[in-house]
């Protein structure tokens, strides 16, 4: 059997460069998790429906299970690991969206959470001050089996407040 051809791929993830060698068919989700070791991105369905694998590709939410690693070469990718803000500590400060999830109990098992966090991060950039309906709309493409969503909607609204608070230098 012939060896599967491998491609040298440079992935720009969370401000770092990862040089990986992958076959053309390798999903971006698998490359991030298994080749780059960034296991924060989760795979819940592998068919583009659940949103757990959502990452930001040049700032836009993308389902990394529907993208091939070789096609992400020139892009700037942000995963959940890249959401925290640099505050000089090793861990970094939770981003407004992350903090809001903690404040509002927006997660239980945490498996779907990275996909929500990335989706909402991008969503708030577009709609910084969402109404409750807009908040619900923002997350309407992501599945969560644990939380029942009410607290995730609250988290979106709270995140928008935190962004404003931080801009005003309050938090």
């Amino acid at each position, binding site marked *: 059997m012939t060896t599967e051809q491998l491609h040298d791929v440079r992935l720009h993830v969370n401000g770092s460069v990862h040089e990986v060698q992958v076959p053309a068919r390798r999903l971006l989700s698998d490359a991030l998790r298994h080749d780059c070791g960034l296991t924060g991105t989760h795979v819940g369905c592998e068919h583009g429906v659940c949103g*757990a694998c959502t990452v930001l590709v040049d700032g836009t939410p993308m389902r990394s299970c529907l993208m091939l690693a070789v096609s992400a070469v020139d892009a700037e990718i942000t995963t959940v690991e890249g959401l925290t803000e640099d505050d000089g500590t090793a861990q970094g400060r939770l981003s407004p969206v992350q903090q809001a999830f903690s404040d509002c109990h927006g997660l239980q098992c945490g498996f779907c959470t990275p996909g929500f966090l990335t989706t909402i991060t991008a969503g708030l950039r577009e709609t910084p001050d969402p109404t409750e309906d807009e908040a619900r709309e923002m997350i309407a493409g992501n599945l969560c089996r644990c*939380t029942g969503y009410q607290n995730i909607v609250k988290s979106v609204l709270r995140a928008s407040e935190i962004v404003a608070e931080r801009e005003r230098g309050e938090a």
Partner: protein
Amino acid sequence: MTTKMFGAKVARVEDQRFLRGQGRYVDDLLTDDPRLLHSAVLRSPHAHARIVDIDVSDVLDLEGVIAVWTWDDLTGPMAEPLPLLIPHPTLTHGRTQYALARDEVNYVGEAIAFVVAVDRYVAEDAVSRIRVDYEFLKPVVGIAAARAAANAVHDDVPDNVGARMEQENGDARAAIATAPHTLTLDLDVERSACTPMEGRGTVARWDPDTSRLTVWSSTQTSTGVRGCVAAKLGLDLAKVDVVTPDVGGGFGVKINHPWPEELLVPLAAMTLGRPVKFTEDRREHFISSAHERAQQHHVEVGFDDDGRVLGLNVEFWHDHGAYTPYGLIVPIITSTQLLGPYKPANYRVVFESLYTNTVIVTPYRGAGRPQGCFVMERTMDAISAYLGKDRTEVRATNFIQPDEFPYEHGLVFQDGRELTYDSGDYPASLVKLKELVGWDEFEDFRAEMAAQGRKVGIGLACYVEGTGVGPYEGAHVHIETSGKVKVATGLTTQGQGHQTAFAQIVADTLGVRFEDVEITTGDTRKMPYAVGTFASRAAVMSGSAIHLAALRAKEKALRIAAEALEASEDDLEIADGVVSVRGTDASAGTRIDLGTVAVLSNPLRYAFDEASKAATQFSVGDPGKPPVAEDDEPGLEGKDFYSPPRSTFANGMHAVIVETDPDTAEIKILKYAVVHDCGNLINPMIVEGQIHGGVAQGVGGALYERMAYDESGQLLNASFMDFLMPYATEVPTSIDIDHLETPSPLNPLGIKGAGEAGVIPSAAVFAAAIEDAEGFPIMSMPISPSELFELRLAHADEPHPLTEESA
């Protein structure tokens, strides 16, 4: 004064790692180990067939493939059927599958061969090269086909009946025969499934240097998996460690064990001398992980003019799929828990548990209770409609009263113990629910809506949930010399916030800072005695065990501190990790840190750090006595177990107001209200989160989710594209929750379980509300808009009772 943590809405500690992408779910493990191998499973494409031949000759030619197993390659206990985990005397024809199918497959998805390769892509390529010759057998799909028994799932199981079980309290049939009024109802519920966002997963590593096997599994029972792996692989229990790190949701499906992969992965790891991983994909989860819910029920009820139930006779048929590894837990729960908060004067229940050529059935959140609640609550609504009485009134007439606890039903529950309710106040709950949902004002609202051409309906449903089943859980509490408290309990966690809730208990019991407590769950190295996380038992069982273990550690701390401070134990108190003489100020000689007490508890020979320097045999103790007294042991620890006499019974009631679209028959939720009583609340935020999640699953079960099998046993909707789970747009926008706290007398903290409650009344409450809106009976759930539309056509000629009245 330290703030009390028990009962407070404390933010969850586990969130920090989850939010940063630092959770460790099974598929996240060993990703940087270059020796890690991956596996894939060949699954049966047929629901019922004999395997004539399996040809794997092409598989090993594929580069990157390391090994392949079929049943022929299995030896010893691995070649025997998987265990029947919960045998029951009435399960006369229990059958379990083999880790790899032997000569027959009985459902689409049954494991036939196991391939290990350098990555999952290659393993899947290899699976597709395996050729199997089948001889087709007639599949049995659905309860009707199983009951008709024209074909058999297993040749040696007559009429597809795995079990028949009957229980009776009084003489229900006689009571019905003489009752002033009788009704009969046929009530069906379809199949659904847990479908956690994370599927199943197992990683195993054999360490030749220590001859130990470590298995990481996304399970609800580490100790259960450990026992099974040891037994099947012929290893001493002491050689096997099972660790369950973070789990991405369970809801019941991850309690079944061992899954074939939980044995095949360790077998491969030992055979190949390299770590091996299996991660289930979504389609595999649909066709090879357990389902639940499918049951048909026939009810006969006799009652008086007030609606008081004099006799209730329920017969039902349970579809348990192709095998019965988890015994009869689901139908036993339906048969007992359908009684809810009521006390029919005479009750008889009989069920048959039937084989079908479909995926196995094991408990899914609520576990048989949603069906039981559906049966009982539909019966209550039918009685109310028949008598023309308010639905809440008929329920109130049948309630067990607050002064009747403990209430014995004269039946045996799923744990083999008496079905005896410990506490509750159902009339008080009903008052709260009516208030919360606006029950008495609803007719005004209906009229208002009708004036706008809108159709609305209201429904309510009550349930009682046996939670905290035994046999036991344990805990170990260790206070380190730093003052940090390390706690281990054996049951696992799947997102319920155990690390937070349990730390709250320890903080209060021991008098330490919440931040100083760290909880480990599901690691057999730290607590080898445990049962698992299911049946809303974690808080009751491990919570109580942790409390007891912390008390033991506290006792010892006080004893040692009393000696050090030359005070009486009775005069000491612990707060914020400091033991002090009550009523004294912070001056020297009256206070001592728990960390220092830990130092004193352990006489040392070697001074390896500053703390230990203070504990060497030259610095502590009476030179006239042995450093460790005969009845003592070194270290500041406490260990204890909690084992309840029987389950504790949580309860609650839900009400919903729905609007049904006159044209599209779509069902919209306008208001959802919950009154919930799970005894004392450890963390109301977490409990409410559990209710939210349960309600969402209930909405799914009532309105969307069903396993669409065709008659050949193919699951037609094995993806999230086709199996509809609620998104944010399908659940109630808000849920009004009120708590009632009737503490359980059965455990030291007065708690009852809360994990499943949210999902139990959903089918019943939605059926009631839709029925109320439409004016014709809803007897089968889930209900889709097209089904509601069909029902409208079928009932088109009947007058709408509500329009009649208002006309």
